[in-house]
């Protein structure tokens, strides 16, 4: 595929801006439809598959303004319906088109706290951009306004130019809120509750904050500096942070309320419990969950020479699964020097749960996709190490309960794939730590914490949200749940919430 540099894209955008910029407010729909969609500049695929730097480089101001000019500024703002935190999308994009970036970021921040994160990792093509009128009128979701790219642009602009505004905090209420877990849901709750003047403590089991943003999503998709910056903002707001603290073990959940004087607790411990496939050979050396592989690399920095945590330096690596985590693991393996990386997935590319962009990026980087196939068993050598996978071929059958066509195995279709490492990326169950140590907490059969429409659990003063409630979902849905939980906590602690607008549940789930 042709690969244009950031500079070339910026120059093209400048030309377009010279034409359309001056008449920005009087452009007709037809004219806006003709403005070419701005391509997100990316690192050269060959180059990037050998480094950890971010793949997408972000729009220039010129590109952002041109892209913003494509927005039809519809009266009926369908895109907002698609956003789990209901950002006023046309309004912030309108500001960008006029070059008013400071105003644009202010609009975004009315409803979301982590735009630099969401702009990078949200599945916009299934949310806001799916509803975009422009995309619909051009009969191509790929031609929708690049809302995610624009969100990222304004957030990066704010950070790079040191314009981050620390949200104001109301006078101290004397109430204390405990936030368990520092992933996307927890960070949102911490900020929203702190803004109301409550004392907020974040408890994190790891030595570093960010949860899945840190241990799961790789540096090349979400640089750690961005997470650090978001956390700096929380600290500047006066949020207290306790790392190396496992609620349930270091302190019982109920003790936080009964002994330590917290008035409310939010549980946002995520979906961390990797699912294995239950096939033969899964306990051979060289078979890892994607969680383990990515944690060793992202959190423990095993890819650096100075790090103590070891990681396999694989030559032939196979990833089982078709979600974003599978893509992350595959692309990471390539960066660590694997000669061949193969993603094995039961269905076809259409059914893949991974974001389109990740699949395209993975292909560009030389990841091989073996579709309509699945591992039947993993083969080992005499030393107990992986040497290959026996796979079966599949075909698509009827649509199942999820609406996806089911994968049906084809009898006697076995074939062997050579491998020295196998990464299992078929999903996560719910982490049992809190429920194990909090017997009064109601959990579903799958181990997810059960909450009502206000995110309250079966226990008084205890709320929960994010993947521990939803099962493995997305960053933005977790943030939406955090939002709602914080509103409920603030209401509990000081009467009806005034500031935070809590979106209704299930706008998109």
């Amino acid at each position: 595929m042709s690969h244009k540099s950031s500079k070339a894209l910026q120059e093209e955008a400048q030309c377009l801006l010279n034409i359309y910029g001056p008449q920005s407010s009087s452009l007709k729909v037809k004219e806006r439809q003709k403005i070419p969609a701005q391509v997100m500049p990316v690192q050269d695929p060959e180059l990037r598959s050998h480094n950890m730097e971010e793949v997408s480089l972000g729009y220039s101001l010129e590109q952002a303004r041109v892209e913003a000019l494509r927005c039809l500024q519809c009266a009926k703002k369908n895109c907002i319906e698609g956003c789990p935190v209901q950002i006023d999308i046309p309004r912030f994009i309108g500001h960008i088109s006029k070059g008013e970036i400071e105003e644009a970021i202010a609009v975004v921040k009315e409803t979301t706290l982590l735009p630099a994160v969401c702009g990078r990792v949200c599945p916009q093509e299934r949310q806001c951009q799916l509803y975009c009128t422009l995309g619909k009128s051009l009969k191509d979701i790929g031609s929708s306004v690049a809302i995610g790219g624009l969100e990222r642009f304004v957030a990066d602009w704010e950070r790079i130019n040191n314009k981050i505004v620390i949200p104001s905090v109301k006078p101290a209420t004397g109430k204390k809120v405990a936030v368990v877990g520092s992933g996307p849901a927890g960070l949102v709750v911490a900020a929203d509750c702190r803004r109301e003047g409550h004392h907020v403590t974040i408890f994190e089991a790891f030595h570093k904050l960010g949860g899945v943003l840190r241990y799961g999503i790789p540096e090349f998709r979400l640089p750690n500096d961005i997470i650090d910056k978001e956390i700096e903002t929380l600290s500047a707001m006066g949020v207290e942070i306790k790392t190396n603290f496992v609620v349930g073990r270091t302190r019982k959940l109920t003790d936080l309320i009964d002994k330590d004087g917290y008035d409310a607790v939010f549980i946002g411990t995520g979906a961390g419990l990797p699912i294995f496939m239950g096939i033969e050979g899964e306990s051979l050396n060289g078979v890892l969950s994607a969680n383990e592989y990515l944690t060793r690399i992202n959190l423990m920095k095993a890819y650096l020479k100075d790090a103590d945590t070891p990681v396999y330096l694989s030559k032939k690596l196979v990833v089982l699964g078709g979600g974003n985590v599978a893509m992350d693991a595959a692309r990471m393996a390539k960066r660590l020097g694997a000669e061949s990386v193969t993603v094995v997935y039961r269905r076809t590319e259409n059914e893949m749960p991974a974001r389109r962009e990740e699949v395209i990026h993975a292909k560009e980087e030389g990841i091989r996709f073996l579709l309509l196939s699945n591992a039947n068993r993993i083969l080992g050598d005499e030393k107990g190490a992986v040497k290959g996978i026996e796979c079966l071929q599949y075909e698509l059958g009827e649509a199942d309960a999820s609406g996806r066509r089911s994968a049906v195995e084809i009898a006697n279709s076995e074939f062997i794939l050579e491998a020295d490492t196998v990464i299992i990326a078929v999903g996560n169950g719910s982490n049992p730590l809190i429920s194990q140590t909090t017997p009064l907490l109601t959990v579903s059969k799958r181990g997810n914490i059960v909450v009502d429409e206000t995110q309250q659990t079966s226990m008084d003063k205890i709320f929960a949200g994010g993947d521990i409630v939803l099962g493995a979902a997305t960053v933005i849905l977790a943030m939406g749940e955090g939002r709602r939980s914080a509103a409920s906590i603030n209401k509990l602690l000081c009467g009806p919430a005034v500031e935070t607008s809590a979106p209704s549940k299930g706008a998109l789930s």
Partner: protein
Amino acid sequence: MMRLFAPLIAEERQAGQFIILQTDDDYGERIPLTIADADTAEGSITIIFQVVGKTTKHLSSFNTGDKLPALVGPLGKPTHIKNFGRAVCVCGGIGVAPMHPIVQALKNAGNHVSIIIGARTKELIILEKEMAAIADELIICTDDGSYGRKGLVTAALKDLCERELKPDIVFAIGPPVMMKFCSETTRPYHVFTQVSLNTIMVDGTGMCGGCRVNVDNKVKFVCVDGPEFDGHLVDFDNMISRLNAYKDIERKHYKCFVEKTFNQPVKEEQI
């Protein structure tokens, strides 16, 4: 042996639980170590470890008053303690350390406790006095016969199983091979045997699955389902194989670290 100031862990910890620590919170690895003792008045926990790799070597160079960059716990399910009747506790090598709080708890629950301590040679026996003070019976075994009975702990364990009043429960903690053969020893006598596993871990909270073992042909996570399991159901051979997963890389790290930090050359056979 090291005492760590960790008042919250000291207060919450129960027999059978462990901690995870790091000697550097940017580049360090996370290693699990069992809690040998705790003093709630002082707010301290005691860990006992053997220098086997880079992190334990680094840890051994910490001085009184130094701050450990990361310490988290107590992790794992606590030992299920009740009055079983006659309990036998078999400890191999450094396994005496994690057994100590279990013995204390068993005794407090009213059990008759026999302890078997095994080591290669007399110098490697630790906590003998502490264990003698609580045990109803203490048997020491050394491989070379330099102290106590000559031979393996399994021989002493077999003798106890042969007694008229055979054990109601056996706890075994030590090297994987020792726990495997203790389990094999008690199997014909149908004595429930609890082992405490120490597998490779990253997070210690159920998130990575690196610590998984096969128990009764099911995948279990040592960190959240264990660390204690029914020894008769554990697939020890697979567990032992998995413990060697990163051995070559770990050896290299140890060698680099010792040579760089302590300026001592390290020969292959020393690791």
